């Protein structure tokens, strides 16, 4: 069989086989609707509540502070739309950054259109939101600050704890989109001063189509959709029991194996970065650390990302130009623009994100194929010296 190397774990991860095993009984045998009183329903209810407890523990939250959703996008939307709409009497101010995921960015833009007062903070060339910028942006009417924990394209880890502490001091709510870090970086919502946090199971070897929102007890939020009143009215719809069970199982595994996984991935990732930087006119986007252990966000002059991705794919290597959504837009990545990369360089970006099964051999293979591909594309390109 053809060699296939998956290096796009920031887009999505394979479901861990151990997780699938935990989910299996809930597909057909333990099938009940967790809202039902009979024994089938009660079994489902128990499983759902056990999952809630496990997830709460993993981020040091209370069980009643975890709300199940369909994924990161929905969690982000409930956090932003829900909190801003429910706290209008306090004010209309939302502070976020210019390089959030579209689930936050587009929601913030929507709120802006609806009359909320939104502040998109700049980020540094290195890929960080600065505390001083947050501080400057806060005002009496600020309701919520939303800063992602790690950026999905360039992997830089934000000073979330410092931001959280400042927000707490100033009496402002703090949401963090932790879709890229849950299961990959330590999260303690108490210590980090986080009031709301978004996560998506398929990013940490759990199933697709399920996520959670942590919402600190007492934080007011409105639902964005209405129905049977599930999840204390914040998120209606029949509970996805296998998905929820799988998410909890995946998170437990990820937390348990985090240190080990990260150490291995970081080593391989550094090797990959170093190898890529040997290619002429190649660079790394964002600071090397603090950065997700799995992330190598590179760029190459005179060639275009999509073309590299396809040629790599032809060699069995799955990489990305940035986020999975960027295939839909002509605009260069807003993340790369936010860190001040010139337009022309934005088009040459290439993101590898490693995972649990990535081996040293895989990296060697990439480092063998990538230079040839860059060279080949540069031959086609009218830019650069030939």
């Amino acid at each position, binding site marked *: 069989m053809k060699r296939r190397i998956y290096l796009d774990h920031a887009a999505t991860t394979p479901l861990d086989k151990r997780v699938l095993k935990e989910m299996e009984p809930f597909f057909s045998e333990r099938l009940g609707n967790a809202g039902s009183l009979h024994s089938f329903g009660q079994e489902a209810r128990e499983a759902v509540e056990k999952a809630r407890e496990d997830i709460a523990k993993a981020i040091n939250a209370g069980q009643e502070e975890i709300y199940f959703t369909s994924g990161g996008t929905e969690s982000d939307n409930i956090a932003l739309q829900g909190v801003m709409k429910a706290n209008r009497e306090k004010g209309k101010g939302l502070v976020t950054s210019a390089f959030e995921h579209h689930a936050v960015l587009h929601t913030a833009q929507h709120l802006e259109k609806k009359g909320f007062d939104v502040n998109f903070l700049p980020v540094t060339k290195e890929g960080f939101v600065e505390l001083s910028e947050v501080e400057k942006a806060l005002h009496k009417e600020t309701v919520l600050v939303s800063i992602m924990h790690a950026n999905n394209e360039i992997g830089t880890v934000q000073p979330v704890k410092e931001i959280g502490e400042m927000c707490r001091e100033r009496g402002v709510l703090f949401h963090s989109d932790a879709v890229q870090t849950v299961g990959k970086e330590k999260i303690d919502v108490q210590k980090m001063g986080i009031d709301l946090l978004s996560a998506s199971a398929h990013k940490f070897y759990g199933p697709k189509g399920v996520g959670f929102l942590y919402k600190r007890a007492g934080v007011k939020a409105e639902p964005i959709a209405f129905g049977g009143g599930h999840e204390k009215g914040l998120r209606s719809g029949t509970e996805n029991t296998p998905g929820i069970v799988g998410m909890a199982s995946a998170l437990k595994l990820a937390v348990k194996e985090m240190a080990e996984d990260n150490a291995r991935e970081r080593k391989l990732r550094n090797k990959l970065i170093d190898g890529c930087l040997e290619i002429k006119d190649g660079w790394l986007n964002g600071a090397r650390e603090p950065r997700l252990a799995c992330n190598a966000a590179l760029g190459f002059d*005179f*060639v*275009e990302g*999509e*073309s590299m991705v*396809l040629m790599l794919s*032809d060699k069995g290597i799955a990489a990305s130009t940035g986020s999975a959504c960027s*295939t*839909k*837009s*002509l605009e*260069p990545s807003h993340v790369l623009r936010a860190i001040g990369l*010139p*337009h*022309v360089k*934005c*088009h040459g970006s290439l993101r590898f994100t490693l995972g649990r099964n990535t081996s040293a051999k895989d990296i060697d293979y990439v480092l063998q194929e990538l230079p040839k591909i860059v060279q080949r594309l540069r*031959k*086609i*390109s*009218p*830019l650069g010296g030939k």
Partner: protein
Amino acid sequence: MYSEKIFKEFRHPKNIGEIKNPDGVGKVGNPVCGDVMHIYIKVGKNKKGEEIIKNVRFRTFGCIVAIANSSLLTKMVKGKSLKDAEKITKKDLIKGLGKMPPIKYHCSILALDALRKAIQDYKNKKGKAVK
């Protein structure tokens, strides 16, 4: 997302490179926007005495569709009379490439622009030479 034809054209592009001492050159696009195309042509005559594109080459910086368009267009015009080459439309190219997201249609326009500029460049030079 893209048709098989686009992928195929991208994977096996024809007519890459430059022509030394070209009769016409068309350069369009802007690296800032993510697409740059250079088309080089060499003009000759066919038996009927019409001016034809004897040789054509391109260099493109851009997405898959941009490269596929460049390759397809150069294949289509090679050997064609200038008149016929100028008649090729965006529609022809899109038909030749198959399904693509509408936001990518501009790549076809870009390729046609480059070709037309190259032909114009040739005509201008010729005009000058005659004068």
